[in-house]
Structure formats: C-alpha cells, structure tokens
C-alpha cells in the first residue's frame, strides 16, 4: 500500500530525474542481504555479492576478506558521512534506501554519492514491496488472531508486478530494485525463518518480472550457514538453483507483451487496479501521459486511463478509439470532445461514447472495487485479442514476453501456492514448438502445442513455483 500519495508522487518524480543521471543499464539480479557478524567464505557459499548495511563497517570488511563484492546500503541522510569514511575500493556498489525521506533529501544524497563514487553503480531501492505469497483471510496480530468473513474468495495473491511495472515507467533509468520484509505469523517460522519455498518464490517472482531484488536472509539461516548446519546449506543450494534459473542471459532481450495500456501520472491512482490486472493475467503496460505519441498506442487493444486527460492526451485517446480501440476513462469528467456524441449507459455508474470504430467508457469516480474492475477489463477484451489465458490456475500469475522478430515468445509463470499443479495455457499466436523449463530442470521438457485458430494451447504438467515456457517456430498474432 502506498503512503501519502502526494509525497510519493513528488518523490517518484524526483527519483525519475535522479535515476536518469544514475543509469546503470543492464543491471538485473538478486542480491542477498547479510546482517550477522559471522559469514562463510564466498567460495564456500558460491555467492559473489552481498548487500551489507553501511553502518556495519566491520561486517563490510569481514565480507570483503571472505571474498565478497559488497554493496553498501545507506539510508538517506547518511550519504555525506559515508563519502567521508568509506573508500570506494571497499565497495562494488551502493544501494540508497529512501525510507520515508523527503524527495529533496533523496536527490541530495544521490548526487553526493554519485559525485563521490562516480565509477560505482548507485541504485535506489524500493522498500515498499510485499512478500510474494498466497494470502488467506486470517489477520494475525501481535495480540491475537483476527478474522473477517466475506463471500468465498478466490486466493488473494500478494505480488509485486504492479510495483515493478510502475517503477519501470516512473524510474526508467534503473531496473526496478525492491525488497520486502518477511510476513511470518507462524511461531516456528518466526524462530527458524521462511520455508525454502518462500525464498524460491521470492527469487522466482523477481526473475519472472525482470526486476532486481534484495533478498533478506533470515538471521537464523545466516547463523546456521556460518555454523555449517547441513539443513541451511540445503536451503542455500535451492536458492542458488533459483537464482541461476531467474537470471538468464536473455533477461533484457525480451519485452513484456501487453495489449492493455494503462495511462497514469501517479502510483496511487492506478496501483490497486493494475495490481488486480496482474492477478487476473491481463498483460498491461504503463505509460505516462507525457510519453504519448501517435505511435505509442499502436500495440494496444484497450486503454485504461487514470490520469485526467489534458488536451494532448484527450486527442490521443480519441484517435485511438476512432481506429477501433476501447478506452476506459477513470475519474475524469471532461468536457471531452467525444462527449458531443450520444452517451449510452454501460455499467451501473458508467456511460459509453461511441467514437469512430471504437468507444470510450467513462467511469466518473475512482475504482472502489479493483477486483470487479479488473474482471470487467478482462471481459471487455475481445476474445480473439486475449494475449494469455490460464485454466485451473487460480494461484498462478503468467507474464508473456515477446522476443524481437515476432517468431518467439516467452511466458514466465509463478505459482504462489507453492505446490505442483497442472496448468492449461492458451497463448495468442501460432507456434510449433513449446519448451518448458523449471529451476530443477532448466532445460527442458517439450510440450505438445495444439493450434486453435490464432492461439496455441498447451498443458504444463507440473508447475510448483517457477516455470518458463519458450514458444518458437511460428508467428505471434500482430496487433
């Protein structure tokens, strides 16, 4: 959940600017955060890089002695002090944690760090992420277990797809880098830390969304690794398998496939609705109104507009609709050019304006029920334009990527239930070869594609947490 909206917007705008200056293209990885004083050698761990708090100077030195490249994490307000005390040769990079600082202070610190360490990557962390997980309805509080009843709910998934997609647009110069705190309600987990599957899911999600992650290793796991406890090494080996799977060389080659465009000028206006878009496997891309040009909307079949359109944006929207596109305009009242046409009641509180070959639906208020809204959007997409459909997969998020050339497509899948399930998938486009890979079987199983019109269907026999499907030898349907 976002905190104060305006503050976040301001901070985001500033970060966009400063990140442009601090660009480190090609960055894409999962870094482990270490907090305990004792640390095994890098060669033993098989891990080269760690994130360590800058305040833990002794630990940084120890980690370097043990053979690690160290990324120092520094909070806003500490930059000046850090530049005085820390040699650049001690570090492989810097992670700036903005916390709840004011945008101006973030900018100042980032400038100081960039000036003092011009050769080092300086990354800005988004610490607002959530532990990826399938959630239930019980709310565990410090002083009790609470429960709120509701109609039967399909599994709620805490995912970071919306956060990543927004960061990609509002912080364009940096691959999104996020962290989350573990949500441990169970008394055994509080003592011993997350399950191995929880670590796997976190790594899988970051990889599937093509984002970077700082993964917090539970203190108990760190201690057990230092003590050479066999069970801890089993966990680490699995994490390393997941890391290897989630960091393929092609990560930055493919682009997210999306036929729903989300136009927004602020996180808080659009976050929950597009969070549910991800949940319902609606492939979406985020655009800022200022980024719109006549070509920028060509890839989309449907636009969802959360920004109040200025004249420029309204023109682009109307052009899009007149060519046959469908636009859903949220919380804007106009006047707009298309309102000169006849208004047709759409939903309970919305009206539609036929515009050229398409139409524009206006929802006057904010989206108060993001779940229903996301389901509406899914239904509004013409059946022959649905990019991806899943069956028997209520706990799965699938993210399609297109590879330049159009003859190949990747689909990253994450099962938040963490238990093997078969998944039936339908992808837009015709492909003759379908290869399926998982962390435990990186290459790979050949699946049997079935062509259904303009779509390719296949069944994944078992998806436990992470899976990647590569479709080749065909053509994807052009927009």
């Amino acid at each position: 959940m976002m905190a104060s909206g305006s503050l976040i917007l301001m901070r985001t705008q500033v970060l966009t600017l400063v990140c442009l200056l601090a660009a480190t293209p090609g960055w894409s990885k999962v870094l482990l955060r270490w907090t305990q004083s004792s640390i095994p050698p890098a060669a033993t761990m098989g891990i080269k890089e760690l994130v360590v708090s800058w305040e833990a100077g002794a630990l940084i030195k120890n980690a370097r002695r043990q053979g690690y490249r160290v990324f120092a994490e520094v909070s806003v307000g500490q930059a000046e002090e850090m530049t005085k005390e820390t040699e650049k040769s001690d570090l492989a990079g810097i992670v700036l944690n903005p916390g709840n600082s004011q945008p101006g202070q973030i900018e100042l610190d980032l400038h100081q760090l960039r000036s003092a360490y011009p050769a080092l990557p300086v990354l800005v962390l988004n610490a607002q992420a959530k532990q990826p997980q399938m959630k239930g309805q019980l709310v565990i509080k410090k002083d009790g277990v609470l429960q709120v009843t509701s109609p039967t709910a399909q599994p709620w998934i805490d995912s970071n797809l919306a956060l990543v997609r927004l960061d990609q647009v509002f912080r364009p110069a940096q691959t999104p880098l996020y962290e989350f705190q573990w949500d441990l309600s169970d008394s055994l987990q509080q003592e011993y830390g997350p399950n191995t599957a929880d670590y796997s899911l976190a790594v899988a999600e970051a990889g599937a969304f093509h984002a970077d992650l700082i993964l917090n290793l539970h203190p108990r796991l760190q201690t057990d690794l230092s003590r050479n406890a066999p069970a801890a090494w089993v966990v680490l080996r699995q994490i390393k398998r997941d890391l290897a799977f989630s960091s393929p060389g092609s990560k930055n080659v493919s682009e997210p496939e999306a036929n729903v465009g989300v136009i927004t000028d602020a996180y808080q206006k659009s976050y929950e609705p597009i969070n549910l878009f991800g949940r319902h496997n609606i492939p979406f891309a985020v655009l800022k109104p200022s980024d719109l040009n006549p070509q920028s909307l060509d890839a989309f079949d449907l636009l969802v507009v959360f920004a109040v359109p200025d004249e420029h944006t309204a023109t682009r929207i109307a052009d899009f609709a007149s060519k046959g596109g469908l636009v859903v305009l949220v919380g804007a009242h106009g006047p707009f050019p298309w309102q000169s046409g006849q208004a047709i009641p759409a939903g309970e509180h919305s009206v539609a304006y036929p515009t050229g070959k398409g139409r524009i639906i206006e929802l006057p208020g904010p989206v108060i029920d993001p779940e229903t809204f996301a389901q509406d959007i899914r239904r509004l997409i013409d059946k022959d334009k649905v990019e991806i459909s899943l069956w028997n997969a209520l706990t799965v998020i699938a993210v399609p990527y297109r590879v330049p050339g159009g003859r190949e497509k990747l689909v990253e899948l994450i099962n938040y239930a963490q238990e093997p399930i078969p998944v039936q998938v339908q992808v837009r486009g015709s492909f003759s070869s379908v290869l399926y890979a998982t962390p435990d079987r990186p290459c790979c199983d050949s699946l049997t594609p079935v062509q259904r019109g303009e779509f390719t269907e296949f069944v994944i026999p078992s998806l436990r947490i992470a899976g990647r499907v590569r479709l080749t030898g065909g053509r994807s349907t052009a927009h």
Partner: protein
Amino acid sequence: MRWNNALAAVLFCASVAVAPTEASQPQSPFVHKKKFAMGTVFEIVAYGESPAQARKAVDQAFREIVRLDDVMSDYQANSALSRLNHSSHSRPQSVPPDLYRVIREALQYSDLSGGKFDVTVGPLVNLWKAAIRGGRTPSSAEQDKVRACVGYQKVELLPPDRVQFHSPCVQIDLGAIGKGYALDRAADVLRSRGISRALLDAGGSTTLAMGAPPGQAGWLVHLRDPSNRVDPQVVLSDRSVSTSEQTPPSLLSRASPGHIIDPDKGAPVRTPFAVSTVANTGSASDALSTTLLLVGPEKGKELVKNVAGVAAIWISPDGHLQLASSGPQILLGGGAPGLATRVETDSGGLR
C-alpha cells in the same frame, strides 16, 4: 457453486478494518498454515502442546481437506461426485461415505428452506455463467430447459450408501456446503490429534472455531459489513460462521447479475444484503448463509427461530440491518448509530 470462487476478496479492506482484540496477556505459540484447496485458501491456526505437534496435526487436517476435495469436487473429472454426476442416472449409484453424508445434510437444508437451498442448481449456475461470458442473458427457452434438470426432490438417498437420481440431467454441486463440511471433518482430525484450540477458515466465507485461544472466551471474528458502519462481531467457540453475498455489479457493463441463483426463479437472486450466519457446524453455517441470503430477512428470521443454535445478520450497503438468533450472540461493534454495543435477540430485527 464454484462460480463463487470467482468473487473477489476485498482482503486489503479486511486487513485494515479489523480492530485489535482485548486480549493483552502473552500468547502461547501457535501454528498458522494455509493450503490451496477447493478453489480457495484454507487456513488453520492451532495451539498445541508444542508447535511441532500442532504443525503435524494441521498438516493432517489439510490432507483430510484435500481428500474431501477429491470426493466432492465437480471440477476434478475423477472425483466421486463427478463420477456420480456422469454415471447412468437410471439406477442407484454407490458413493463414498463422505459424499453420502454431505448430500444427506444438503437435502436436509433443502427441506428446511423449502427448496431455496438446492445442490442441484448447478446447471442453472453454469447456464448463467456461460451466457454472461458471452455478454448476454439466457433466453427463456434456455432457462426452462435447464430448470427441468433442477430440483432437490430429484435426488433420493438409499441407505446406507446409494444415490438415485430421478431425472436424466440432474447434477449435484456441493459448492454451497462442501467447504463447511470439509472444515467439520478437518476439525475432527485436529481433535483426534490432541488439538482443542484452533480456528479453521475456508476462503473467508466459512470459519470454524474449536475451543478458544488461551485466556480468551473465544475467537473474535469480524463479520462482513458492506456498509462499513456496523462492525458486527462474534466470539466463536465450538461454532462456525459463514457469509454469503451476491456478486457485486459490474462497473463497466450491464451483464453481471450475480453468481447465487434462486432455484425458484431460475435466475440470479437480487439482494443488497450480505448475510452472516452462526451455527454449530461448518456445514450448517455454510448451507444456512446461502439459504438466508436467498430467502431474505423476513422469512429468514422465522427460519432462524426454528433451528437451534443459529444466529444471523443481514446488512445492506446503506446500513439496513436485520438480526435474528435462536441462541448465539452477534455483537454490534463500533459506530452503528443508536445501537447498543451488545445486542441479544431471540428473533427480530433492528433498523
């Protein structure tokens, strides 16, 4: 009624709507686990002699739920229910004990409700679901054709384990009772493993309490309140509570009449209410919440009076409130203007 599962959880609201419990004493360690089954998330919180013992018991309870899903699922082609639905309807079929038992319980609620609760309504659900996906309303002819397949009287139980269908097209869907039944059986497993304090939940719609947390009278459960003004609560101990509510209307389209079908009308019920029902077992609260949503508060209050150990509350988005009880208490919490903070009624309603 698996279509239920497409309905959203407004969980982010739930997590901020709850108030802290009054308990202040240190809690014993508990185990909290969740499991995806029956198209939703099952959760169990359990206190045991040790976390390890509780964890084993919870795992065993989840295995029981998965086993029952394999019996009662209408999605799994090889489940006992699917085999029954696709068997020859011309002769009785033997079914596993659990399937026989849950159908028997369901038919009891059908009798009690005069057919408003009906596990044979599945074909109508499917008809409406398919039609709405296509952006239209089913025609009268389509509805009539399917309604001919619906009716709990078309299902006959032949003890000890056989089911006889009296229509070639009747089908059973246990979506409105199956999760509650599964919680009852999971609780049996926990008891058999020495657990006496646990809270079991199925997707937020049915919650079953065993005993109480240490030092407390029961498990505090906040009930669904579409008005956000009433904050109804129950303190559950060895009881269950379930909530039913029609699908919210579409924001952008007119074709979303809802997932809960009125068997009498053959169409989705139109009601503004969310209903929460307290009963002695999970299957009872699960079945009764759907029933009380379908019959509405007026008839529902009469029904509640005639069943021991039941309480129900109907709340509409505008704060219209109706209460009925034949025993259990439903507490009205923060902010309901003019209402006592604690309401005990044998029957009757409040506005």
